[in-house]
């Protein structure tokens, strides 16, 4: 049965082909069955494979399907590698993916491009499974680029609005920077180690490179570049908020639950490489922490429901990076999984809210929706509690592990811990700010008639609610993957510190309550201070990062392209064209149309030929 692992990406790929080849001629019902059903089949297969794998007790399982290409010693195959890590990833992708597909059959029901939507979604799932199951870095890169392509296609799904196309291009180009870095990293690894099979690379790197050697640092840095681009971490984070232009199920699936966590997966997968480059590993932690805090502050000021969630995604992935940086590999993967549950829940619930209030996304035009939208209210409540790490929800366990691991780290561990706790505090404030503004208080604009949704929209929400609540009790089988160099699981911290960690997000929630529900503190009064206005503007624009990149990269590039408008290199090719044109103009004169002239040419040719014959 384990041999059938190749079926996992095959089902969605077949679904994609079926939908693409019929190009929207199928009725929506059948499209929905193909689109969601193929991912459902994948999930069933994944579940069966997972039980068998865990029952078998093997550390890993490799299935080579066929050799992809063979160029000298470079022979990457279509081979699938299953261990605890890819097992968790494949279950999250197919499981959460299936729920989101199911939800999307309801959410997208009125869209004329229903079939196109599901074909992209299926292609995405196929590529994502390829990414996590590939046993070599080439196959991983195939999936990596595949999900990037699908992300681009789906952000720009409603392409008639130029702003969406702009967002799609921005996402594509910014992630491309990271992907290029990653490709160079792959070249470096192959040139130095002679293989791209992940396990061989890791073993060879461990054997050949000393800890902290230049090559190890370079390789780890280049891979980190790819991870940072895909996971929207500093400094390549600017694309994620704009990516919210896509349909909401896309934001849930691609830009929250699965694709953006690919960077976390990549680092976890190649963790040995990062262990022999400790400085880069520490850099990962710092990137994670700074992203957590930056995104947290930005989320405090946003007004678009999906953008708030996008910044919170950035911040949560920052936690995963923090965990990776302090060597808490399994904590990072654990948080990845729980985050997939509660963030998918939050996004899908926000989708229901947005549909119910007729595509309004500004939270200040909602308000008081608690009674009208009970399912969304419950979803948001549970999702927000999990997100803020309320005790015994799923987010609590995973975030707790990350922060404790940071605290136990030598050196900068304490600073990282303080930063992480501050991030948790911000999470509490911005999450419940959203929650209180949307569901309590006065309605300021859109009063929904009734809540959108049927069984196929609410069913996934209920399942995700349960997963968000109890997901923290799932034990992920990754010990064997990270057996080596893992920060020990048993934490020895005083009850005081632990209590503090639990209390901080709750304090955040209380502050949010005082500001936005009880109105004991007035937000208007706070905003009347000049410094807070400046900060608001600064944070609202995402710390001015877009502005900075415009000045640093976009404008100089535009300026360069402007002064080189009459392309220097083009002029050479233009010369070839001109030469051909001139020759043509010359020779065309011989075509007079007079038969006698042609006869004369023939005679002249004869004369020349005879001359040559005589002379030779």
């Amino acid at each position, binding site marked *: 049965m384990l041999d059938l692992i190749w079926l996992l990406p095959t089902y969605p790929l077949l679904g994609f082909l079926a939908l693409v080849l019929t190009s929207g001629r199928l009725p929506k019902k059948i499209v929905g069955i193909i689109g969601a059903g193929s991912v459902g089949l994948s999930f069933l297969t994944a579940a069966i494979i997972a039980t068998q794998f865990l029952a078998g007790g093997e550390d890993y399982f490799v299935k080579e399907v066929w050799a992809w290409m063979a160029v000298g010693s470079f022979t990457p195959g279509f081979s699938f590698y299953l261990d605890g890590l890819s097992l968790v990833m494949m279950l999250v992708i197919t499981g959460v993916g299936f729920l989101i597909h199911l939800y999307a059959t309801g959410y997208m029901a009125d869209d004329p491009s229903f079939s196109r939507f599901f074909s992209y979604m299926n292609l995405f799932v196929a590529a994502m499974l390829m990414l996590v199951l590939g046993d070599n870095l080439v196959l991983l890169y195939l999936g990596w680029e595949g999900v990037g392509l699908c992300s681009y296609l789906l952000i720009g799904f409603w392409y008639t609005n130029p702003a969406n196309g702009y967002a799609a291009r921005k996402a594509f180009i910014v992630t491309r920077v990271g992907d290029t870095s990653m490709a160079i990293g792959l070249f470096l690894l192959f040139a130095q180690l002679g293989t791209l099979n992940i396990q061989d690379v890791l073993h060879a790197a461990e054997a050949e490179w000393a800890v902290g050697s230049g090559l190890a640092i370079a390789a780890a840095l280049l891979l980190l570049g790819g991870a940072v681009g895909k996971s929207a971490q500093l400094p390549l984070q600017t694309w994620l908020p704009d990516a919210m232009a896509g349909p909401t199920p896309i934001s849930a699936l691609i830009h929250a639950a699965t694709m953006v966590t690919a960077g976390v997966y990549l680092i976890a997968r190649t963790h040995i490489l990062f262990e022999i480059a400790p400085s880069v590993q520490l850099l990962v932690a710092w990137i994670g922490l700074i992203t957590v805090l930056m995104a947290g502050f930005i989320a405090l000021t946003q007004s678009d429901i999906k953008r708030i969630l996008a910044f919170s995604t950035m911040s949560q992935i920052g936690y995963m990076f923090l965990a990776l940086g302090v060597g808490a590999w399994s904590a990072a993967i654990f948080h990845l999984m729980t985050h997939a549950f509660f963030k998918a829940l939050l996004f899908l619930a926000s989708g229901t809210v947005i549909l119910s209030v007729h595509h309004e996304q500004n939270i200040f035009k909602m308000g008081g929706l608690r009674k009208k939208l009970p399912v969304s209210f419950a979803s948001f409540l549970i999702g927000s509690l999990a997100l803020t790490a309320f005790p015994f929800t799923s987010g609590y366990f995973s975030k707790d592990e990350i922060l404790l691991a940071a605290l136990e780290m030598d050196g900068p561990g304490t600073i990282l811990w303080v930063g992480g706790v501050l991030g948790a505090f911000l999470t509490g404030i911005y999450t419940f700010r959203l929650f209180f503004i949307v569901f309590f208080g006065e309605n300021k604009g859109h009063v929904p008639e009734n809540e959108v949704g049927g069984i196929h929209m609410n069913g996934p929400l209920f399942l995700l609610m349960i997963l968000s609540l109890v997901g923290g009790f799932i034990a992920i089988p990754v010990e064997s993957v990270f057996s080596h160099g893992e920060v020990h699981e048993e934490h020895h911290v005083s009850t005081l510190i632990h209590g503090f960690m639990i209390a901080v997000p709750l304090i955040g929630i209380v502050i949010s309550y005082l500001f936005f529900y009880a109105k004991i503190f007035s937000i208007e009064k706070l905003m009347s201070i000049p410094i807070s206005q400046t900060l608001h503007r600064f944070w609202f624009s995402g710390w001015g990062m877009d502005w900075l990149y415009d000045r640093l990269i976009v404008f100089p590039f535009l300026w360069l392209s402007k002064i080189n408008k009459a392309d220097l290199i083009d002029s050479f090719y233009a010369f070839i064209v001109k030469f051909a044109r001139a020759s043509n103009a010359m020779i065309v004169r011989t075509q007079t*149309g007079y038969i*006698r002239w042609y*006869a004369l040419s023939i005679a002249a040719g004869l004369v020349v030929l005879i001359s040559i014959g005589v002379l030779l």
Partner: protein
Amino acid sequence: MESIPIEHGLILAAILFSIGLIGVLTRRNIVFVLMSLEIMLNASGLAFIVAASRWGHAEGQIMFLMILTLAAAEVAVGLGLIIQMFRRYKTVDINELSEMKG
């Protein structure tokens, strides 16, 4: 019987060929052009006959027969074209038919 230098026969063929060429290049009346072409074909046939009689073979005559066939077919098609041209352009001036130019 006296002998004839082979040179003389070939020179005659060359002269006839050149005159035919002048006719093709000079005349504007397409019927004259076609006639000049016949002269050139006939000249080459003559060269074959001269060469055949130098060896005393029959093969040269067979080549002449082929040229004759070619000339007959060419004249038939050429005259058909002249008739068609005259119908459309009401002229036999080949300079009129110079629309196909670059």
